[in-house]
């Protein structure tokens, strides 16, 4: 592999370090000094940001960045036939990520200063944010799957810690555990995928696997013995399982809405706009592997799985998003839905479109989350100003959109930036970034469905189109409920615009949410294409792949269709919520849908199903079956049985000992003792008695030797 220079790779290798060091410094030393803590954190991200910008602007000027990426590596795990190497890699895909991630993160860091002010665990927040940032940057610059996985998991930990940041709140720590465990389901499968890939190829390096036609061919032609898939297909599906967890796709989507229990829109935004897109990034990154499986054994199975999961999730989450009242939860569902869009795009082979939507989505979704944070912040303060928060009145939920209304006048900057983000999310034609990326996905699906006549793109197109209408609807619902009409509570009436440290990031991100899409205007789009200089994004990111993907010829039909879809959804939302804003206490018009509303509101009852099917059986299995029955009853029962048997045998032997062995031994002893006791009488202690015996003895001898012979005559 040829690489570009030596200085740039070293700069890239430096990028993840500043936030990591900041994490260490804040944790170990500056925990007590809030101002110092956030200064260190922001400074570290700023350094990473500057480094990334240097790398990015250099990278986009390089010819053949795909073939000759910015890369460097060193042996990390010296074992086995060849040492596992760690290193950095910046190819076109990596370069655009490197542009987006530090930029968005820097905004979040700045925003947090205002939002988190006054929190008792202020420094801890910045420490975790820094660690998160380091992990995300590591993931972006990683040149191999294992390193990516390290960043991936550390991010997972940080998201756990941040969701459960207000650890005293039961809903917060439950959501944290849920997030950790749900994503872990995908992670362990992903780990298997990594092991599988390494076992087959002897390397985990992206460039070595994904840009090596022989390796890809071999992987596609080796059977995996599972469901008739090739190794390439199975490995990509295992890796995709990681994405399903991390990017909250069906069936592992349940954690993300709960993650909004997390303390702040800031951390929610971390999970929603940054970390979850890491999952999609990985799938996009591994796209060549997925593609290789297409022509090998098992055919397009892997594509079908990815596309259908993505499209179905996009639709399902959109329906759920419609019926939520929590301002952050609506955004959470829209995030799940949009990530589904991207994966559906990957599944129909629209590589660049997926990457494009990933990028634009990151900007406008960050904007929306920060905007919602600004709203919540304002409503919370308004609640205090309105004289509440001291008495014992009923609990007030500052996240509930039905407690807002009319905020447009109270906080105009937040309002207008939020509208910009919302329109981008809904895909408002021509003037928002979201339109261009969404249009590209729908265009690709349209092309596959109606011009090539394939089934999969047709399914994807229908699901995504339905999702897009719903997206427009709930976006408008959200804007209307939050900002339009009259304030529905005293808190909303007393809300005030947020401080400048929170406003600045909003404005900054709004810029990208509107103009970010112009880097990828389709070739041949009337008027605009000439203005923006063709589809730069497609040309650049497409270079990541071995074979540069063909840009679709401009076709006005899907553009018109997707514009109509977006506008339909928005207009529907306008008709229901904005034409006549809801007054205080008025119920949601959706309630009239009856059971459907309940079904959506309760998230299709999937959480309850999981509770019954997975959580409770697992706990039962752990507590009753394994910990108690297997270990205590079976194994220990067996052991105690053996012990009792040995004990009984010991008792029997003891009895034998006591009766027979001891009997003989003691008998002898007792007999001697008894004899002694009897003979003891002889010993009177009186010397005279003894002497008498002596004299008698002497007499006896005399008789024996003198008198007896005489009498007996011998």
């Amino acid at each position: 592999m040829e690489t570009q220079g030596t200085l740039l790779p070293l700069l890239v290798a430096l990028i993840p370090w500043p936030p990591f060091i900041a994490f260490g410094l804040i944790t170990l030393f500056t925990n007590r000094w809030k101002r110092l803590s956030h200064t260190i954190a922001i400074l570290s991200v700023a350094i990473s940001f500057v480094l990334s910008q240097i790398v990015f602007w250099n990278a986009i000027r390089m010819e053949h960045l795909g073939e000759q990426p910015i890369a460097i590596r060193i042996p990390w795990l010296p074992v086995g036939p060849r040492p596992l190497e760690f290193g950095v890699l910046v190819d076109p895909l990596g370069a655009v990520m490197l542009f987006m991630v530090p930029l968005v993160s820097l905004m979040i860091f700045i925003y947090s200063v205002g939002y988190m002010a006054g929190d008792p665990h202020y420094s801890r927040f910045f420490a975790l944010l820094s660690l998160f940032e380091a992990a995300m940057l590591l993931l972006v610059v990683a040149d191999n799957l294992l390193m990516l996985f390290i960043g991936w998991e550390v991010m997972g930990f940080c998201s756990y810690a941040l969701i459960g940041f207000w650890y005293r709140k039961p809903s917060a720590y439950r959501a944290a555990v849920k997030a950790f465990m749900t994503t872990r389901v995908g992670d362990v499968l992903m780990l298997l995928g990594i092991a599988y890939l390494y076992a087959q190829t002897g390397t985990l390096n992206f460039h070595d696997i994904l840009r090596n036609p022989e390796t890809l061919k071999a992987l596609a032609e080796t059977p995996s013995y599972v469901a008739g898939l090739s190794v390439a297909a199975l490995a990509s599906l295992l890796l995709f399982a990681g994405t399903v967890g991390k990017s909250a796709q069906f069936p592992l989507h349940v954690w993300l809405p709960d993650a909004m229990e997390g303390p702040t829109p800031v951390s929610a935004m971390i999970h929603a706009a940054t970390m979850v897109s890491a999952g999609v990034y990985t799938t996009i990154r591994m796209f060549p592997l997925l593609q290789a499986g297409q022509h090998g054994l098992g055919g397009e199975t892997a594509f079908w799985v990815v596309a259908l999961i993505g499209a179905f999730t996009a639709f399902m989450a959109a329906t759920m998003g419609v019926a939520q009242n929590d301002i952050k939860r609506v955004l959470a569902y829209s995030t799940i839905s949009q990530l589904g869009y991207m994966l559906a795009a990957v599944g129909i082979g629209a590589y660049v479109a997926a990457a494009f939507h990933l990028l634009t989505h990151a900007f406008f979704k960050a904007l929306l989350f920060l905007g919602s944070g600004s709203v919540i912040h304002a409503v919370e303060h308004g609640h205090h100003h309105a004289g509440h928060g001291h008495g014992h009145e009923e609990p007030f939920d500052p996240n509930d959109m039905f407690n807002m209304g009319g905020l447009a006048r109270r906080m105009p900057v937040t309002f207008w930036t939020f509208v910009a983000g919302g329109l981008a999310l809904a895909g408002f034609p021509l003037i928002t970034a979201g339109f261009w990326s969404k249009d590209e996905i729908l265009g690709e699906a349209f092309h596959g469905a109606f011009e090539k006549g394939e089934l999969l793109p047709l399914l994807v197109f229908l699901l995504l189109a339905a999702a897009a209408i719903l997206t427009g609807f709930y976006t408008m619902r959200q804007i209307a409920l939050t900002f339009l009409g009259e304030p529905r509570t005293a808190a909303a009436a007393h809300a005030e615009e947020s401080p400048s440290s929170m406003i600045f990031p909003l404005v900054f991100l709004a810029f990208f949410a509107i103009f970010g899409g112009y880097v990828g205007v389709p070739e041949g789009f009337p008027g605009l294409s000439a203005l923006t200089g063709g589809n730069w994004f497609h040309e650049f990111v497409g270079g990541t792949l071995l074979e540069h993907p063909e840009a679709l010829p401009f076709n006005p039909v899907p553009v018109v269709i997707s514009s109509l879809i977006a506008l339909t959804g928005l207009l529907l939302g306008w008709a229901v919520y904005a034409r006549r804003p809801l007054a205080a206490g008025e119920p949601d018009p959706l309630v009239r849908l009856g059971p459907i509303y309940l079904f959506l509101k309760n998230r299709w009852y999937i959480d309850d199903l999981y509770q019954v099917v997975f959580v409770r059986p697992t706990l039962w299995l752990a507590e009753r079956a394994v910990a108690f029955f297997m270990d205590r009853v079976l194994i220990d029962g067996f052991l105690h049985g053996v012990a009792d048997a040995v004990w009984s045998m010991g008792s029997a032997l003891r009895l034998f000992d006591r009766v027979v062995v001891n009997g003989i031994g003691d008998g002898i002893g007792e007999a001697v003792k008894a004899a002694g006791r009897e003979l003891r009488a002889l010993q009177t202690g009186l010397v005279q008695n003894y002497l008498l015996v002596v004299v008698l003895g002497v007499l006896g001898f005399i008789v024996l030797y003198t008198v007896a012979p005489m009498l007996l005559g011998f």
Partner: protein
Amino acid sequence: MTLFGQPIPILTLITFIPLLGAGIIALTPRDSIRLHRGLAFFFSLIPLALSAWLWLNFDPNRPGFQFVERAVWFPQVNASYYLGVDGLSVMLIFLTTLLTPLGVLISFNITEDPRTYFALFLALETGILGVFVSLDLLLFFLFWELGLVPMYFLINNWGAPERRHYAALKFILYTMAGSLGLLLGIQLIWAALGGTQGGTFDLLEISRRWPALQGTLVGVPMEVVKAIVFWAFVVAFAIKVPVWPFHTWLPDAHTEAPTAGSMILAGILLKLGAYGFLRVVFPLFPAESARFAFALALLATAAIVFGAYAALGQRDFKRLVAYSSVNHMGFVVLGIAVAGYALGNPTIRDHALIAVNGAALQLFAHGLSSAAMFALVGVVYDRTHTRDLEAYGGLWTRMPVYGGILIYCAMASVGLPGLAGFVAEYMVVQGSWPVFTALTAIAMLGLLITGAFIMKAIQKVLHGPLNPRWARLPEMSAREILAVAPLMAFMLLTGLWPAWIVPTLNAALVRLFG
């Protein structure tokens, strides 16, 4: 290193200095607690310094054993005082000498007869170190047994009041049952190799002669003798590891032992079993090992999965941590099983090498994380006098430093990348996936549940509103932090840069395959 022209017997010094310390402590007056503590700490630091020196001077690239010492010991049966180390034992010696001072440090609050306690604790270290340096099977056995006795008394006399006698008895009976077979096996090997005419306990010589040995022993075919010895060894080591289903002594012993005792039990004593597999069973029984490797892998998987489930099912904090050892040692056994399989199937040696390196690294990683976890359990137990998870709640509010450290160590235990456990577990999974594919996939279930029980522990202890019972709980003391900090540092170092330790292990383990 030489002194007065004589090579310094470094291994002997490392092994016996703790015993010397134990003797000296035993001679001090009963009441001078500070003296006991100081002496114990001092005498546990010397071996640490020496073993660090050993590590630095050990050359992994040189084949064979290093720092060899050999003296006549028992000429009638041809047993000798034969010591030597390779990469694997150097690592384990370092781990042992690292954990002992930390255990002493955490035991400073022992008030009940600290003199005997510290003397036993140091004697325990000698027993363990002896096993790692012995190259003579009889000596190996001697040290193997020597470690049991102090441990028994530590559990029996200083354990948690409720069930310590039961736990101590279960521990010693179970392990003794295993070592009975070990002794029998060692004697059979000696007899089969010629008894007083040519019999030997020299491990290296045995591994040269024994695998190819033919003929009969008092009329019994050598195949049968080998099978008996193989199973005797396997059972002895399997109990120690412990391999599922021989594991139930572990939760009892670990739970009832005093904090430092649990640290040593989980941190090092369990490693003796795995060490036995790698040092004794594989070189002596390559063919048998390969034949039964699958069964061993099956049991390892059972340990991983059931260990995790059992941990999840506990209400007792310490018992939960104890069961996590079953789960983590399962990965060690899985890696060992892959290596065993490779002894008979040369084509998978590349994978096996990764797996067995992972197993060895897991010994180190688990030594760090389990010792740290037990120390941390001890910290709250000392303050609250309960181990019931339901009784805690919200301790993070009172003990922020403790909370951070607990989460850090728990994450190391769960295998968070960037900390030591991940590298080891990844290597085991990596190596065993191509060999025991289905089992590795099932083991992932265990890895998943590992996350669940660690989450449960963290949540029950730290999260939630503060239980008013603990409103006056003091923060972790500097001494307690000092006892855990080195472990945390090594976790991070190994997680970020495993290359500092892996080549040393690799050089030793690669010789398993000739």
